[in-house]
């Protein structure tokens, strides 16, 4: 057999660049329910776990011990384990069962029990559960800001833009580890220029990360990775105790901490121990909980392509987000690393977190182009920002990203670049030139930036890290150089550390800027700074913004001012001026001469709509009504007949217009013509909605087509076979022009009047 053309085309599709494999439990290549996964069990003796998930305490590995001794709420564990998993699954899906009731039981479940609950749930039920179990009432989003050249002005500009666009957290990382203090500094200054209160972090090796936080260059830490088996954990150079100690160390400096886990990492590291990805993730989450981390980023993260290669992979990723939320962990729900070549598959997967809402929809939306993303891609990047904004507007869903205008973005980028230039200058770092400011302001990627002296930058970064300079000297440098508002924001980030309010679960600083203070100058408002020099960040967390979803009418609703902001994408136009190009001076050659009378002549009637050559004067395709009419009449004349023009007032509906024309036509044949150009050939005696020929694609109709329509109508009138009229088919026309179509029709409908069809005198003669 010859090969299928269709399969050849399918093979070229983006989806077929992906890898798909069948499950192989022995290699850990199974997303859920490995035959080797332990069965749920729990036995307590004297208030101590002596058996968990089929394993007796003497056989516990370090993770088992940690989970048994720190994660499980033993006060409810026996009740939770005795409650059928199906019942807990139904509680998750039931809007009448509050979040706290489900969470209480979940906190007493062993890893195997948590997985057993998921076994009963489909994706839709899990999405509903996620919307209810999400920790923070208000959803938010996190951005990645990095670039290949690690250019400080570009980092600051991109961070400022991300802040302006509403991201609540911004994460950077390094290509060269020694750049860490400078990259952290650039996004600190950039974000606090864009919007005060944006939390920042720099993903680097654990000990270095802690040093950056101690210097005040970062305000949270996220990449505290945990794994579901002891061997993978050890390969990650930590234990649950060292990770928990690190979490306490961060907190002791007033720094927010979020752990990182996710399906697939153990299989990738060769230490899955034949268990399913979801079971191992449940262990990770309990370790995270036990360590006292307020939250986790999961959803497979950098391993996403591995579960996605397997059946049920995307479902399992949703399940892990749900498990985190059930346990009361803030969840930054993946959607960060490149997950697919197919935009359809990427968007579909995103919906599982986007629609329910999570604490951070992306644990890193790439606010820079993919090629500048040092985290492994950027599943959604700077080039998808408009798409993201439209999705929010389409679904009335808050995905944590605000629309922004080009002017506001350019202004904030320039100011951030100038701010980091000032800091570099004040602290004696290698200078950032005015040309670099210009480049960073308008740049899309690091391709737009000239390279810097990497040796000098790295040497200065080393000195900065080794020095005792930190947040205070940065704020002071900004203040001295006239960036009081940015200095105030940086200082406020430091001052917030003293309260530790943002150490509570799912904490962010308010997404909504405070109303401008009296000190806000018009100039600072123009620059897009809402807060002037005086700032007060408002924290939102599980304590004061707990998710209270309990079905329709409850929980977070995108409405009011926030919804107005998310609707106002820069592409949205006022519909009121849409039809202006279709309204011009009416042709004086057409004159109404009284009610149209029936005739018996062999003629064609051209019946036009009530707005014709009046309220409207051009078709949707931009043709003058007069020229359209002339073309039709020329076609009729070619066949040796004449035509009368009749204006129908009682309807704007095409079939009704044509029908009314046919009623008075001597031959019984009429051409119905709406003012937007849509045309029908009608015949007396046919049902109103029937017709001889319909030309619905008005934008594609040319004067030549109208002439052919005239010819055909005349041929019908003469009783000879019509000639097919060639019309270009453009299936995109409807998509492009539907708003205009609706508004043109509305305008014509406004002209409807209660009077019989009127004959129009058309001052026109056929060309020879």
């Amino acid at each position, binding site marked *: 057999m010859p090969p299928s053309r269709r399969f050849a085309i399918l093979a070229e599709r983006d989806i077929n660049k992906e890898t798909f494999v069948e499950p192989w439990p022995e290699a850990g290549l199974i997303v859920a329910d490995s035959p080797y996964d332990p069965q749920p069990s729990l036995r307590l003796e004297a208030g101590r776990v002596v058996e968990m998930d089929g394993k007796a305490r003497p056989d516990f590995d370090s993770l088992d011990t940690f989970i048994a001794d720190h994660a499980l*709420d033993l006060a409810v564990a026996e009740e939770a384990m005795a409650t059928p998993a199906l019942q807990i699954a139904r509680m998750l899906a039931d809007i009448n*069962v509050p979040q706290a009731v489900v969470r209480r039981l979940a906190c007493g479940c062993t890893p195997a029990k948590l997985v057993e609950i998921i076994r009963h749930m489909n994706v839709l039920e899990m999405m509903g559960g996620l919307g209810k179990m999400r920790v923070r009432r208000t959803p938010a989003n996190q951005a990645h800001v990095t670039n290949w050249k690690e250019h400080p002005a570009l980092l600051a500009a991109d961070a400022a833009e991300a802040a302006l666009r509403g991201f609540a957290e911004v994460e950077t990382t390094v290509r060269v580890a020694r750049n860490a203090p400078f990259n952290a500094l650039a996004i600190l200054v950039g974000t606090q220029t864009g919007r005060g209160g944006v939390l920042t972090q720099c993903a680097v090796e654990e*000990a270095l990360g*802690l040093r950056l936080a101690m210097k005040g260059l970062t305000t949270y830490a996220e990449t505290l990775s945990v794994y579901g088996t002891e061997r993978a954990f050890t390969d990650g150079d930590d234990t649950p105790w060292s990770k928990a100690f690190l979490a306490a160390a961060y*907190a002791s400096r007033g720094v927010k901490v979020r752990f990182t886990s996710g399906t697939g990492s153990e299989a990738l590291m060769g230490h899955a121990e034949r268990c399913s990805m979801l079971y191992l993730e449940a262990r990770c989450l309990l370790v995270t909980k036990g360590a*006292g981390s307020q939250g986790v980023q999961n959803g497979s993260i950098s391993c996403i392509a591995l579960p996605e290669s397997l059946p049920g992979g995307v479902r399992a990723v949703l399940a892990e987000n749900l498990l985190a939320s059930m346990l009361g962990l803030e969840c930054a729900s993946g959607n960060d690393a490149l997950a697919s070549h197919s935009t359809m598959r990427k968007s579909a997967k995103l919906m599982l977190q986007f629609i329910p809402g999570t604490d951070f929809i992306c644990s890193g939306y790439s606010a820079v182009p993919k090629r500048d993303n040092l985290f492994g891609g950027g599943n959604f990047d700077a080039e998808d920002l408009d798409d993201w904004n439209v999705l929010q507007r389409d679904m009335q869903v808050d995905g944590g990203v605000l629309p922004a205008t080009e002017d506001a973005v350019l202004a904030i980028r320039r100011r951030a670049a100038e701010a980091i230039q000032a800091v570099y200058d004040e602290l004696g770092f290698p200078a950032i030139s005015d040309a670099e400011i210009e480049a960073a302001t308008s740049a899309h990627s690091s391709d737009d930036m000239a390279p810097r002296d990497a040796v000098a930058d790295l040497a200065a970064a080393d000195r900065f890290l080794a020095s005792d300079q930190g947040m205070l000297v940065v704020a002071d440098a900004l203040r001295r150089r006239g960036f009081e508002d940015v200095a105030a924001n940086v200082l406020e980030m430091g001052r917030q550390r003293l309260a530790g309010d943002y*150490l509570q679960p799912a904490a962010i600083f308010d997404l909504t800027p405070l109303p401008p203070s009296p000190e806000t100058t018009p100039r600072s408002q123009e620059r897009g700074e809402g807060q002037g020099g005086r700032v007060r960040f408002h924290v939102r967390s599980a304590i*004061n913004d707990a998710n209270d979803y309990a079905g329709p009418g409850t929980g977070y609703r995108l409405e009011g001012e926030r919804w107005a902001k998310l609707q106002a994408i820069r592409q949205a136009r006022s519909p009121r001026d849409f039809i202006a190009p279709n309204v011009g001076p009416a042709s004086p050659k057409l004159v109404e001469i009284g009610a149209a009378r029936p005739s018996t002549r062999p003629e064609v009637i051209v019946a036009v709509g009530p707005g014709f050559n009046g309220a409207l004067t051009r078709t949707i395709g931009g043709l003058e009504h007069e020229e359209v009419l002339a073309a039709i009449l020329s076609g009729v004349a070619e066949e040796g007949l004449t035509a009368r023009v009749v204006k129908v007032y009682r309807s704007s509906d095409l079939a009704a217009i044509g029908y009314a024309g046919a009623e008075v036509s001597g031959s019984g044949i009429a051409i119905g013509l709406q003012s937007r150009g849509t045309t029908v050939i009608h015949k007396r005696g046919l049902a109103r909605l029937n017709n001889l020929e319909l030309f619905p694609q008005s934008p594609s109709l040319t004067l030549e087509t109208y002439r052919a329509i005239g010819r055909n109508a005349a041929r019908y009138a003469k009783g000879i076979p019509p000639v097919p009229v060639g019309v270009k088919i453009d299936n995109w026309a409807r998509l492009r022009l539907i708003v205009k179509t609706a508004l043109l029709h509305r305008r014509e409908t406004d002209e409807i009047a209660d009077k019989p069809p009127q004959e129009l005198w058309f001052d026109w003669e056929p060309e020879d």
Partner: protein
Amino acid sequence: MQKAEGGRRNERYPLMEGATDELKAASGRSVGEISLEALTADELTDDDLRITPEALRAQAEIAQGADFPQLAANLRRAAELTAVPNAELLRMYETLRPGRATYEQMVALADRLVSEFEAHEAAAFVREAAEVYRARGLAKP
């Protein structure tokens, strides 16, 4: 509808708004005095941006009251660790990473947490780790 438990709102939270008068930096300076004006007057030092054990204990209580007991325990350990200097804290973390320290060295660390820093909860945590590490081969032989 079943009765919701937990998630109780705390009137003092956020402490930055509900307990501003009591909040101090590690330096003893009140949070209200940490301002751009103070920065301009060159009055601020790094200790003015360091959280106090009292603030962390207050947050631990808030977390406990909202049914986040593990987070509360972490914040209590954090309160103890405020006393540990930066470099020392980094070394302690390093000691706890797998294969870095012998059982005896870990126990010694726990002892020092108590004797030098009165960090009883953190010390108990390190002691517990020492036992598990020894049993699971995660301590340096």
